[in-house]
């Protein structure tokens, strides 16, 4: 077994997504069997990360890091992990009654659970969102624990960089939801609207998130 690497906050740095990925029968590519972060499709195009993945699972069912040679190669050749820690316990996209775990995609509503690790800090949510269909009336609402904190217009086919201060208590799990207007769901119930390129929650001392142009 290769020497295992950990982030400063103790997350295991895995080679999943860097030089090992899961492929499903339809060709869809995911980071691994436990982290359903899409990486494309083997019949179209797929991408690999340039950094190790900070994972909270120590004893996972995924065999990737047990491939000693590939794990060592990943440690030796990967770029520094973009963020100290992803921090989000999961990223949930909701279509109808079916919650599916994804980090980005097309969806009317998505969110994550986040537990601030320190007290006495304002937490800022920063988003990069693209209104890729150019819808005129598209708006995005940010809710924390079910209470709306901010709304942003997303008019125009542009990428919008947004910021909102979140009322988050330390050491308590919060449910942060990003909700698009109902009118962006078409008649068949298909979600239309926006893509999230980058989401992070940060204080001057800590930064948690994902992004970096994965799309």
């Amino acid at each position, binding site marked *: 077994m290769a020497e295992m690497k950990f982030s400063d906050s103790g997350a295991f740095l895995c080679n999943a997504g*860097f*030089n*090992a*990925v*899961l*492929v*499903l*029968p339809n*060709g869809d*590519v995911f980071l691994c069997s436990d982290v359903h972060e899409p990486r494309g*499709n*083997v*019949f*179209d*195009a*797929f991408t*690999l990360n340039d950094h190790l993945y900070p994972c909270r699972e*120590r*004893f*996972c*069912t995924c*065999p*990737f890091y*047990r*491939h*000693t*040679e*590939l794990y*060592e*190669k990943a440690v*030796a050749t990967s770029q520094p992990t973009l963020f100290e820690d992803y921090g989000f316990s999961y990223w949930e996209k909701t279509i109808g009654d079916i919650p599916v775990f994804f980090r980005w995609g097309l969806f009317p509503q998505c969110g994550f659970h986040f537990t601030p690790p320190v007290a006495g800090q304002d937490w800022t949510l920063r988003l990069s969102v693209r209104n890729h269909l150019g819808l005129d009336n598209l708006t995005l609402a940010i809710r924390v624990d079910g209470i709306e904190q901010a709304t942003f217009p997303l008019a125009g086919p542009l990428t919008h960089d947004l910021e909102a201060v979140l009322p988050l208590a330390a050491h308590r799990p919060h449910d942060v939801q990003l909700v698009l207007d109902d009118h962006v769901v078409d008649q068949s119930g298909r979600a239309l609207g926006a893509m999230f390129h980058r989401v992070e929650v940060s204080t001057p001392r800590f930064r948690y998130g994902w992004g970096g142009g994965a799309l």
Partner: protein
Amino acid sequence: MTSVPYDAWLHWVVNDVCNLACPYCSAGNSWKYDTYAPIDIDTFLQSIERTGKTFLVRFTGGGEPFLTRNLPELCLRLAERHYLAFNTNLIPARARQLFSQLSPDRVDNLHCSVHFAELERQDLHARFIDTAQMVMARGFNTTFAAVAYPGHRDRLPQWIDMYRSHGIRIILAPFNGEWDGKTYPQSYSEDDIRYYGFGKRAHYFQAPGASADG
């Protein structure tokens, strides 16, 4: 650092159907591979060539990968530039067909699952052993693994001895699931761990969902 001749690993769950019906498996015995569309080989090869990387492609499944009909053709073409690995029960005829043609130099590992009870029920022991001896004789890096299913505890030594007499050494992998009201692998006793020879791998049992891969 040990070197491998590939840059990255695609762990491809090719399908979720199986020709066997093991009590410890979630894939079941749907045997509906005729409904599976063949893999679009040209499109797949073009896609991975665009990455510029050399891949290890491990074909596995929630079932048996060789139930996908054109898998041998894909593998022969992939092996021209990439590397292969397999998780298979060795029973489908096209598995034997491929392994009689493929160069062992292009195969990282051939992980053969030995499902004793199903092989016995379907009278397939001889077929498995024959193919296993062929792949070993051809020089593939081969492992043979069986599941330490608590419901088969008393039969396992007999089966393992029989296979050993044919030159096939079996490794036992922990069972993940429910049996007799208990959750495994956490419910293996110290005696079980000694009995199945898990040894150092026992630490995998300390967390829910943990497993050893053979």
